[in-house]
């Protein structure tokens, strides 16, 4: 599962991620990271059973943890099943079903955003809000 770790401004310089990894021994994949002087946001991936333990460790250090269950959203009213998104996705989230409708394996999404720009119908979003 993927988690969004949000650092406040005053914690940016602390090696929190390293501390949590060493303390818990949980293996973490970094999906994306945006950190600057005003704060930071790191998306990590961990195995499902590590969720509670790693969440507690981060939160005890004043870092917010949000479970990302909607990694990528599709507005089905706008999507025309063209499949333009298929070839720009680096993690093969998109494909065609037997009837040429678009399929999505959202758990593979790394939230790079390439498909969002590719979609001619602005049907895809990764803003983290729930899909309608």
């Amino acid at each position, binding site marked *: 599962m993927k988690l969004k770790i949000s650092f406040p401004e005053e914690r940016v310089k602390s090696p929190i991620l390293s501390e949590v990894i060493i303390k818990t021994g949980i293996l973490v994949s970094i999906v994306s990271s945006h950190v600057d002087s005003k704060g930071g946001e790191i998306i990590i991936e961990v195995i499902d059973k590590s969720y509670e333990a790693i969440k507690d460790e981060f939160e005890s250090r004043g870092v917010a943890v949000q479970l990302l269950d909607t990694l990528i959203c599709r507005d089905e009213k*706008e999507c*025309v*099943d*063209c*499949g*333009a*998104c*298929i*070839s*720009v996705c680096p993690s093969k989230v998109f*494909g*065609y079903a037997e*009837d*040429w*409708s678009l399929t999505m394996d959202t758990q593979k999404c790394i939230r790079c955003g*390439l498909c969002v*720009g*590719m979609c*001619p*119908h*602005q049907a895809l979003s990764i803003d983290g809000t729930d899909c309608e």
Partner: protein
Amino acid sequence: MAKTIAEINEKIASGNVCVVTAEEMSDIVDNIGAEKAAKEVDVVTTGTFGAMCSSGVFLNFGHSEIPIKITKMFMNDVEAYSGIAAVDSYLGATQVSEKLGIKYGGAHVIEDLICGKEVEVVAQSYGTDCYPRKELTTTITLDDLNQAIMVNPRNVYQRYDAATNGSKKIIHTYMGELLPDFKNVTYSGAGILSPLSNDPTYRTIGAGTKIFMGGAEGTVVGEGTQCSTASGYGTLMTTANLKEMTKEYVNAASFEGYGTSLFLGIGIPIPILDAEMAQATAVRDKDIEVSIKDYSIGKRDRPVVRNANYEELRSGSISLNGKDVTTSCMSSFKKSRDVAEELKRRIVAGTFLLGANTTTLPPKQSTKPMKETNKTPVVRDVMGEKVITVDESAGIIEAAGLMKQNERNHVSVLSNGKLVGIITSWDISKAVADGNTDTVNACMTKNVITCSPDETIDVVAKRLTEFKISAIPVIDSNQNVIGMLTSEHISKLFTRGKHE
């Protein structure tokens, strides 16, 4: 045994017509042969659903209480051409919003009208004795218009090129996002279901042919603009009533970094007059050729990376330069199929009769390039032709000597005769200042940005700015260095006057 369109229409009216889609027809002809298929099948329906940029709508607004002869008009901040009479205008799909730019354009206004939404209209005029009003602002819906007639200058291209990108950076095109280093391929069209691929000699498609267009019943006006029958790139001008269209078959689109377009569903019924037509409609994806072109080359004639067919493109990946590359379709095959199925349903139900084409497309017509009277010079015209190179294993002293001797600031670096880097006087200054007296290889820039001799200067000048570089090696199609273009060469263009 040949059938006529009138006979087929009688069958439709009496409910005894045999209609199949172009997908189904391929199997039928394979199974029973063209002769027999022509006896059994009366109509083959085709369909396509993709970006049709050359689309727009003629609108008539009716006269206001104090009449106005509109000279400029905006609909939701998108300009509609109004140099036609007093209250007529033409709203083009690719015209973009004055305020929102490419996020919203004529195509979106068209979609909003179809969906019954209100659209703000702002109009201006200079005022005349018969049309005194000079300004007007109102809000309209599709119902308020007298006419809204879609007339699309160029739709349903017979063939499309597929796109890839051989450059080092992502590019944004009307074929979508193209990843660097040939990492993806995008293509358009419906292959087996594509209307003109099922009648490639245009026997039954021409002025007067009745078509399914955006959910409405439309007509082919005749040849489309840029119609090039000689090279197999036929196009059609089409028309239908916007008031009869539905969002299901008409969708506005915005391509990042490019602009707006209209996705439109068009289906053409093909009368199976004889075995020849049955054979034509048996076409399959593998029979339809597509050229994959490098869209990073900003020229009219883009180089073909390879040729492919729709079967290969639709398999999901294709081999390019020895690597498997993922393909994406910019048209919707699912919706293309919906169009062909819906057209079939209407014909079987007797609500859609065929229209005989009164004029055929002009055969053997080709498209001319634009006549340009003030040509932009190309790289070849201004580059330095004396090629100064150094091997990557040479010392930087040797490179510095070459620069001094030839009065150059940039030298191309080769390895086994191939370009592997570029070294500048700045690179050497840095190395010396840092106390390095290494080989050229250690100091050079390895990710070299290059250009071809036929690219225009404005395109390459933009590249120099973009990559913050002051010189660019010119390479031919065999990757051999044939010159160097520097910012000084470009500056000289202006000091010595416009290049002839």
